[in-house]
C-alpha cells in the first residue's frame, strides 16, 4: 500500500480524536501520539466502519474519513482512555 502522506496522517489524527478513537492530545507533547496508539485507533475505526482492520491509513480508510457523517463521536472519551490504558 502507498505510504500515507503527512497531510493524510494529520487529517487522520484529527479525525480519530474528533470522533473518540484517540484521546485528546497531551498538552505537554503537543500532537504527538505513539505509532502503536495511532495504529490501534485506526483499527478500532476500521472495525466500527466495517472496513478490513489493517491499522494503516489506507485508501478505503481515508475515503471513509471523508464520508459525510454525524458530528457526535463513535466512542465516548472514557472508552478511548480505557483503550489507551
Amino acid at each position, binding site marked *: 500500500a502507498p505510504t500515507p502522506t503527512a497531510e493524510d496522517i494529520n487529517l487522520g489524527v484529527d479525525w480519530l480524536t474528533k*470522533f473518540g478513537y484517540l484521546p485528546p492530545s497531551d498538552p505537554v507533547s503537543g500532537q504527538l501520539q505513539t505509532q502503536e496508539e495511532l495504529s490501534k485507533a485506526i483499527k478500532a475505526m476500521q*472495525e*466500527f*466502519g*466495517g472496513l478490513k482492520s489493517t491499522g494503516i491509513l489506507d*485508501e*478505503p480508510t481515508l*475515503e*471513509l474519513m*471523508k*464520508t*459525510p*457523517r*454525524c*458530528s*457526535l*463521536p*463513535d*466512542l*465516548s472519551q472514557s*472508552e478511548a482512555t480505557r483503550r489507551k490504558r
Partner: protein
Amino acid sequence: SVQPLTKWAKRNLSWRIRTYPKESALGHDTVRALMYYALKVWSDITPLNFHEVAGNNADIQIDFSRADHNDGYPFDGPGGTVAHAFFPGDLHTSGDTHFDDEESWTFRSSDVHGMDLFAVAVHEFGHAIGLTHISDMESIMRPYYQGPVGDPLKYDLPYDDKVRIWQLYGVRESVSPTAKPEVSRAEDHPFLPDLPENRSTIQPRKDEPDRCNTHFDAVAQIRGEAFFFKGKYFWRLTRNKHLVSLQPAQIHRFWRGLPLNMDSVDAVYERATDHKIVFFKGDRYWVFKDNNVEEGYPRPITDFGLPLGGVDAAFSWPHNDKTYFFKNNLYWRYDDQEHRMDEGYPVEMTLWKGIPAMLDDAMGWSDGEIYFFKGKEYWKVVDSSMEVEQGYPQSTARDWLVCSDMQSDGPGSESSRTGARSRHGQQDESRSENGYEVCSCTS
C-alpha cells in the same frame, strides 16, 4: 458502542424549529413536515409523544446553523460533519438538534451530492432520545451518511434500532414488536409534497428509460452501493438497498471524463486493489479515481489480455481477489495485483452452472454473494460456489429497483410471485428477527 444511561424521564416531548435553512431548495413547510415524520418514526414504536410548540422552551430545539455556533461542535461547510444532536438530560441544550446549513439538503431528489434531510433527521432524533452510534451496517444510527432511506411515510426502522430504543423506553402499547407499522390517515399529518419545489429540474426526460421494464447495460457495486446503468442514465442504491431516487441520474453529470457522445456502457467494476472504478465500452476502457477519469484513458482492453470485441460483464470476486470478465459464452480470470490474465483462460461459461451466456453484467454484493444480470432477471451464486442458488432467476425490477410485479411485467411468473409471497409470509409469522426475541412489557 456502549449505550449511555441517558433517556427522557417524561414521555411527552415538545419540539420546535427555531431556524430554517437559509438557501435551501426545501421550503419551510417541507422542512417542518420532514421533522414531523422523522420524529414520528420513533414515536410510532415507543411510548414517546412529540408535539410541536412555539416559544423557546421546547425540549427539542431544531436549528440550521453554520460553522461555529457556540456549542462545541462547529460545522465545517458542505460534506464532513452534517448534523448533531444532544442526548437527553437536564441541561437546556439536551435534545437540541442542529443541521449544517451549508449542506445541500434534499428530499426525494436525484441529486447524488445532496443530503437527504429525512434520513439525517431520523438519525439525529435517535441521539436526541438517547441512542448512540453503532457500527451495524443496517442501522440508522451508523454514523456515516448512507443516502436516502425511502419514503418518509413508509419508512420502517431496521429491527436492531427498534430493539435498542425499546430497551430504553419499552414498546408502544399499540405496537406488536414484529408487526408492520399501521398505515395512518394522511389527513392527520402535515402535507409532504410529492416533488421538491423546483419541479422543473426533475421532470422525466424524454429518453429516460423505465427502470421497471428494462434490461440494464451494466451493474456494479461501487463503494458498497449498487449502480444500475442504462443508456445515458444510472440508478443508485444505498448499502441497505434503498433506491436513492426514482429518477435516474445522467452518467455524464456524475462520471466526469467519459466522452459526451457515449450513449451507454458495457460493464463497470470497482477494482479491489486500489478501489478505482473501471468502465468498459467496446474495445476501450476508462479508469476513474472517485468520479473523475484518470489521465491517459481510454486505453484498449487488450491491456487486460482480452481480445478486441468488448466485454459483457466484469466483477471483482472478494472470495479470491480475482476479476472476472465475460463475453458471449466465455469468461476470463484476471489478477489485478499482478496485472495479468491467469493462465488457461478463456474458459467456457458452462463452468458457472445455471448462469446464461451473453450476460448484461454481474456484481459482488455486500452479502458476499455474486449476482448475474441478463434481460429483466438476475441469478444469485452463493458461498464461492460456481452454481446458481435454487429459485433463480428472479425479477431485477422487483428485487432491486423497487417495482411491483405488475409494474415490471417481466419474469413476474406465478412461481416468482408465489416466492415473494411466501417470503413475506414467513417474516410476518416469525416472532423474532436477527436472533432477537422481543418481549413487550408496557405497564
